[in-house]
């Protein structure tokens, strides 16, 4: 296959402070607010390298958008919305909901599982552990899960979220309490999820999938904030497991169905869009309400997917280490969504109002004291989990003091790609990524050659730099850094 190159962004990026850039509202006709990108000078060339900043400007044209079209430092080119984008719209001001502002992988997200195991205990068994994870947990294209849910079961699962799995004995009350929204977005409407979506999702709950999804065994290599780390149950040398997946084919189909259903909505409601992938409908419209109902159902499926993955991880650890998961201390730190739209109360120009916050590759990051944070963490702030790449590091952060005022209580969601898939594949030619990782102390298993080549560490920005920006911006603060020991991928 031949390749052609991607265009770069040549529009204005005005520096406001050392971590904030602005695209002025005057940049293009139709912008209702400024664009704001959180980035320092280290990240600026990468941001200018593709069309993500143009997409930030396009999102600023959406009716009812509040304050600014925002982007996190892990921003990169998406479709319609950039990845790393945040957009709050006011339902009372004709605000819209846009499926592109959530993405195909509705409630793609991560969860971090603690263990009481140490590096010394796991290092000698890391190869059999990763191989067992690869054998027992469905990962990769076309790999179905152990459970096939009937349409009726799927509807109940999508209505109730993780508490549905608790009734089946596949989640504990403690698990439920440590999932964003306690694992269930209210007002889900599974009846609005199509038969095609149900069919795609029937055997995929409890599967990793492919692309950038993974399960990774990690070790806490550095604690930055002892008090918060202690409250989060983290300490140096501790083994954790990071799970990254979303709503699988069911969610992709819900988004696809919504984009088709909304094709005519912009014309119907007199909305002019700079990119058809920004297709949207007023929140108060029948089309907008229908999307929100189906999206919430898919989001609940995604919470359940990660729960079933965690359950399988626990079973693998039991098998490899010969002890029940409870005695291995395998408790859930937290589960956060990356791709979602939620109604939240925020202050806009000094007025508290309900805003529909679209997070597309961005993480909720509520500060200490917020009522939506689980009680054990509330005095410290919401745990934020930031996956990096499979060769360097990931981070646990805590919701920062300025997140509500600056970003609708939001922070970054990862390192963010800096190489396209085609460029990463080209860079991997003649190399053995698996062996390179092994030499660096990371045992990697993947179903496909593309899985490792396209997701190699060099394809991503340095997560330490990205995290440094959100820390300095006060969106979320550093708690602990984790490094990879083993990973399974599609």
């Amino acid at each position: 296959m031949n390749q052609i190159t991607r265009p770069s962004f040549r529009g204005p990026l005005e520096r406001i402070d050392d971590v904030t850039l602005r695209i002025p509202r005057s940049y293009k006709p139709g912008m209702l607010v400024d664009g704001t990108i959180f980035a320092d000078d280290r990240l600026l060339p990468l941001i200018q390298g593709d069309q993500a900043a143009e997409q930030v400007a396009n999102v600023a044209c959406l009716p009812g958008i509040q304050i600014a079209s925002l982007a996190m430092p892990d921003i990169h080119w998406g479709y319609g919305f950039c990845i790393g984008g945040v957009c709050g719209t006011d339902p009372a001001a004709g605000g819209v909901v846009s499926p592109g502002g959530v993405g195909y992988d509705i409630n793609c997200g991560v969860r971090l599982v603690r263990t009481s195991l140490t590096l010394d205990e796991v290092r000698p068994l890391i190869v059999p552990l990763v191989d067992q994870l690869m054998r027992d947990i469905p990962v990769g294209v076309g790999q179905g899960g152990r459970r096939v849910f009937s349409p009726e079961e799927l509807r109940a699962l999508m209505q109730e979220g993780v508490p549905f799995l608790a009734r089946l004995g596949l989640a504990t009350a403690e698990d439920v309490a440590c999932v964003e929204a306690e694992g269930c977005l209210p007002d889900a409407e599974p009846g609005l999820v199509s038969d095609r979506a149900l069919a795609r999702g029937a055997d995929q709950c409890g599967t990793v999938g492919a692309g950038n999804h993974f399960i990774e065994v990690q070790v806490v290599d550095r604690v930055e904030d002892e008090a918060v780390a202690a409250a989060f149950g983290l300490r140096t040398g501790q083994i954790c497991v990071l799970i990254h997946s979303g709503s699988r084919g069911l969610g992709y189909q819900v988004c696809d169905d919504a984009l088709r259903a909304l094709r005519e909505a912009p014309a119907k409601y007199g909305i002019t869009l700079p990119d058809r992938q920004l297709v949207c409908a007023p929140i108060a419209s029948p089309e907008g309400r229908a999307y929100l109902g189906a999206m919430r159902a898919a989001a609940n499926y995604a919470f359940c997917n990660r729960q079933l993955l965690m359950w399988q991880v626990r079973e693998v650890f039991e098998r490899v280490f010969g002890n029940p998961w409870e005695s291995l201390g395998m408790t859930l730190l937290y589960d956060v969504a990356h791709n979602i739209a939620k109604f939240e109360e925020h202050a806009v120009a000094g007025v508290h109002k309900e805003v529909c916050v679209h997070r597309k590759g961005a993480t909720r990051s509520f500060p200490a004291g917020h009522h939506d944070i689980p009680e054990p963490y509330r005095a410290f702030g919401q745990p934020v989990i930031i996956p990096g790449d499979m060769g360097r590091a990931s981070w646990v952060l805590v919701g920062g003091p300025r997140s509500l005022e600056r970003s609708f209580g939001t922070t970054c969601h990862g390192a963010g790609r800096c190489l396209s898939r085609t460029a990463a594949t080209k860079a991997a030619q003649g190399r053995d990524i698996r062996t390179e990782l092994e030499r660096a102390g990371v045992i990697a298993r993947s179903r496909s050659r593309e899985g490792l080549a396209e997701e190699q560490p060099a394809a991503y920005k340095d997560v330490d730099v990205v995290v440094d920006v959100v820390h300095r911006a006060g969106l979320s603060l550093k708690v602990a850094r984790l490094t990879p020991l083993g990973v399974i991928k599609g």
Partner: protein
Amino acid sequence: MFEVFEHTADLGVRVEASSFAELLADAASGLSTVIAGDLDQVRPEVVETFAVPGSDPAWLLFDFLGELHAAFELRRMLFRDFAVTVTDDGIQATARGERYDPARHVLAHEVKAITQHELSVERSAAGVLATFIVDI
């Protein structure tokens, strides 16, 4: 003829052909290649037909690719050879391929969806030019 172009997180496919019918067939090969990698591993054992109604070329392309994608997602069908006929009210297509066999096929990508981002069909010097981006 199709080529893959760079898109940071996803993959774009650009197709150029002398006619719209040929363009649709080449676009289908492009999508199959993104999913399966090497199409030589796919045997043309069964023939399936697809009918897509409509008249807008971009939406016809989008909906046709969507049907092929659904055939893999719902029935695990991989295709390699395509023939398309364009009519006044839509398209008729045949596709040859086989069901995915995990023991024999090594797939390249999980395509989440065909996106509408930068979806286009336009006239070109050689005939017709189309682009589409798939979400990976």
